[in-house]
């Protein structure tokens, strides 16, 4: 699937792009010698993990570098306007609008934060249209509403006059796309446009972008860390790692015949649905039994309703397995996980732990915190906010030991902390450091080490890898698996990401609107889902699309502006 040859002139040409950051901790090179060509109408996937320099490269096209970043003098970025070449680095003043909205526009990762909260969404669209085309208000508004209609927003007139917080998550991203398209750009930069969305919404938005690409025929620079997503949309791929390009080429070549080790690692993180582990011969005895559990948060203020997060769940968690708990945001999965640890208000039903000395949590009964903490621990989603920034790593890991008074003296504590740190592959020489010195993956290891230090038998991992990069996710998942195999740990793994669950878990439960929809072994759920909701979820997983199934080469129509 080669690109049409009739376009002899590329749209964008990046040569030797290098970007330096000046931070108080010293200089560091975020992007090193990036070369990139983009033809009109081409969709280029820019793949990499956080810190790989993909976003900052895209921003340099719009001349949006932060003030402490600097281009090296030999960096060249050129954009072909359709008539002539423009040296992007030499633009200034009004001319910058050419790359900011004019020929190039951008879709951000978080639609909620990228709309100004106190200005109507429509007014922001109209403002942009007016700025670039000089249209009068009425016609700009008409164009805007038409665009809203086109990106699939129902009742576009009504939505046009609303504020961003009045729209739902998927609607916001649609509005963001409409805003980006409002100036009819020739290049659309999409910075992780689907990452912050739920799986089903993600699939819809992706569908929409594919459609729009066909209709508008603009080129796209699609930035993501998810190879599943990119395989559906991109023509060509550029894989970046730590500021360097490690591999580039056509989508098929990179995805199905990867040459670089790093690309292979990324591919390994995708779910292999045809390679799921067989269900264990017999289900082990449950370690935790949940009976008719409901969770209701009391009203937070006068005039507010109490919030029912979970209603009437019955569930057995088999010992020594990793149980995946899947659902979209708002399904009550996190509340359920917290309730198991006595951190969410149980309004009805009970949770029974079959430990050596049984323990029951139920409505209206005070949680016996210490025996519970001895046996059951939590690994948090956000590796940043869950570690006290004012304590050293050693103190953080030792905290449960000290709080529960499990050790007689300091030497014993140190001994135990060292043991656990090694277990979680933490560099023991770093124990004196503070959390701010660590990356997300290392922080999550610290968080796991803290949970393991008391030798618990049950761990709730609440979206434990959601904030991490794919390749680091793999390491953490491997660590969790080894904990299950070697220590016989039972893990409740809460996640919205079905690919991770498919790769990790033995048993899967699916939740929706505070209720349990379906449960079963991984194989059953992924290959033979019974419920419609489960099927939708699984259908929405961005798996790698083999070449045959990909959309046919897109007929590129030149956009009306030409």
């Amino acid at each position, binding site marked *: 699937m080669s690109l049409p040859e009739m376009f002899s002139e590329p749209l964008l040409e990046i040569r030797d792009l290098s970007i330096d950051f000046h931070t108080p901790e010293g200089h560091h090179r975020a992007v090193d010698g990036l070369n990139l060509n983009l033809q009109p109408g081409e969709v280029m996937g820019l793949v990499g993990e956080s810190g790989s320099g993909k976003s900052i490269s895209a921003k340099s096209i719009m001349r949006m570098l932060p003030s402490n970043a600097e281009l090296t003098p030999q*960096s060249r970025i050129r954009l072909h306007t359709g008539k002539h070449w423009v040296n992007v680095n030499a633009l200034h003043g009004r001319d910058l*609008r050419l790359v900011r909205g*004019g020929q190039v526009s951008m879709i951000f990762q978080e639609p909620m934060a990228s709309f*100004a909260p106190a200005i109507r969404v429509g007014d922001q669209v109209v403002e942009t249209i007016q700025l670039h085309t000089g249209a009068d208000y009425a016609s700009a508004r008409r164009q805007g509403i038409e665009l809203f209609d086109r990106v699939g927003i129902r009742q576009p007139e009504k939505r046009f006059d609303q*504020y961003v917080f009045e729209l739902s998550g998927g609607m916001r991203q649609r509005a963001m796309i409409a805003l980006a398209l409002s100036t009819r750009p020739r290049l659309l930069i999409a910075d992780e446009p689907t990452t912050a969305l739920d799986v089903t919404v993600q699939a819809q938005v992706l569908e929409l972008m594919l459609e729009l690409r066909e209709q508008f025929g603009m080129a796209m620079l699609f930035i993501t860390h998810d190879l599943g997503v990119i395989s559906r949309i991109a023509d060509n791929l550029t894989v970046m790692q730590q500021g360097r390009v490690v591999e580039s080429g056509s989508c098929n070549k990179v995805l199905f015949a990867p040459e670089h080790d790093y690309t292979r690692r990324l591919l390994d993180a995708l779910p292999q649905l045809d390679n799921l582990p067989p269900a264990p011969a017999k289900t082990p005895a449950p370690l935790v039994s949940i009976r008719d559990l409901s969770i209701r948060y009391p009203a937070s203020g006068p005039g507010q309703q109490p919030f029912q997060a979970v209603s009437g769940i019955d569930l057995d968690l088999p010992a020594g397995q990793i149980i995946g708990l899947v659902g979209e945001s708002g399904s009550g999965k996190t509340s359920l996980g917290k309730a198991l640890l006595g951190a969410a208000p149980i309004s009805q039903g009970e949770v029974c732990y079959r430990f050596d000395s049984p323990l029951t949590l139920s409505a209206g009964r005070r949680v016996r915190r210490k025996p519970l903490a001895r046996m059951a621990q939590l690994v948090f989603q956000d590796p940043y906010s869950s570690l006290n920034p004012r304590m050293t790593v050693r103190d953080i890991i030792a905290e449960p030991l000290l709080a529960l008074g499990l050790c007689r003296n300091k030497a014993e504590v140190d001994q135990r902390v060292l043991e656990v740190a090694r277990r979680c592959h933490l560099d023991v020489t770093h124990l004196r450091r503070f959390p701010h010195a660590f990356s997300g993956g290392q922080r999550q290891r610290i968080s796991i080490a803290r949970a393991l230090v008391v030798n618990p038998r049950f761990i709730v991992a609440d979206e434990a890898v959601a904030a991490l990069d794919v390749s680091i996710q793999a390491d953490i998942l491997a660590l969790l698996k080894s904990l299950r195999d070697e220590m016989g740990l039972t893990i409740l793994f809460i996640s919205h990401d079905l690919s991770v669950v498919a790769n990790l878990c033995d048993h899967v439960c699916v939740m929706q609107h505070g209720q349990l929809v379906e449960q079963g072994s991984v194989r059953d759920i992924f290959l033979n889902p019974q419920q419609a909701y489960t099927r939708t979820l699984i259908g929405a997983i961005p798996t790698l699309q083999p070449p045959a199934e990909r959309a046919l080469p897109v007929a590129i129509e030149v956009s009306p502006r030409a």
Partner: protein
Amino acid sequence: MYEFLTNTWLLWLLSTSAALLWWRSRVSQLFRYIYHRYLLALGTLMLVSAIVFSLMEVLPGDCAEKMIAYKNTQGEVITQAQIDAERARMGLDRPLAVRWADWVSDLTLKGDLGFSCSKRQSVNAALGDRFWISFGFCIAGLLFAYLIAVPFGILSAWSLNKPWLDRKAHHAPARRLRNSLGLALSKCMDLQLRLISYLGLALPNFLLALSIILLYVFAGEPTPTGLFSEQWQGQPWFAASGFQWGKLQDFLGHIWLPILVIGWAATALQLQTVRALVVDESNKLYVEAARARGIDGVRLWARYPVKHSISPLFNSVGFDFQRIFNDLPIVAVVIGLTDAAALLIEALAMTNDQELAAGILFLVALAVISMNFITDVVLAIVDPRVRNSVMQGGGH
């Protein structure tokens, strides 16, 4: 009947508006919020009155002693028994709580602030429109502070993370020079303004007022103390020849001094607030997104970070007013004003007139609370963010 109404008019006003709000609140979330805010404001006012009233107990002496002391100057001989009798007559021997209840009920029924012993007339009459003069001074001082603090706070926020020099290698030398000049200029402006505004804070306002007056003394000019010079003091605003422009001119020639003095001190704080607010907003993603759409320059700053930081600034107007009034009494003493602030100092430090002082303090608190109430309501109507949180539920 008429007398009954005139004696209870305020209570009727308060309860009618409460009833109206309550009636509307059953159908509208917004009115529900306003109704809650209204009740809260009334409750706070009650608390304030209790605090102020009991605080005034610490002032030495009471009304009975003062009355008798006054008679003493007329040449009568006074015994302790007479003082006690006078005390009983005025009801001063009753417990504090009862007297407070008495005071508050008079206040809520007909807006009567009590009786000033030293002035020997009701507090309302003693105050006259002096309270409005003080109020005017504070508002003018506030405007002065905002007028300076808002534009320069924005400038300060803008230049906060900018370098002194343009060191971008790919800029042409001429442009680098031009950019550097602009940057350095704005940096210098910012530093200078911060220095000047902080000077307003560091020079205690009474000293500032004194030094300005001293300058006049040294220059041999008449000092701009008081509200009017002697020439215009007794003249009416409207004479036979129409409006007295001369009086207005004279008036303006006098009031700039207190406004400058109290406004300057407030500027420093406002500048810091504006700067912090705008910096906060300008770091948000939506500003970057707007920039990515090609919005730039003044338009970007005015419509995005600045527009979004106006609400919190507006929200603090009530407390800014309180802070400014706080400074006013001492300035009033130095400049020789005769407004409520000067009366307050007189009542507190010289005549120990409890009810007068309590009355003035209560009025100031009333002004602050009403401003807070008004800003909250206005923001709930105008600012979509606030309205959203209000609509989500009673939200305080």
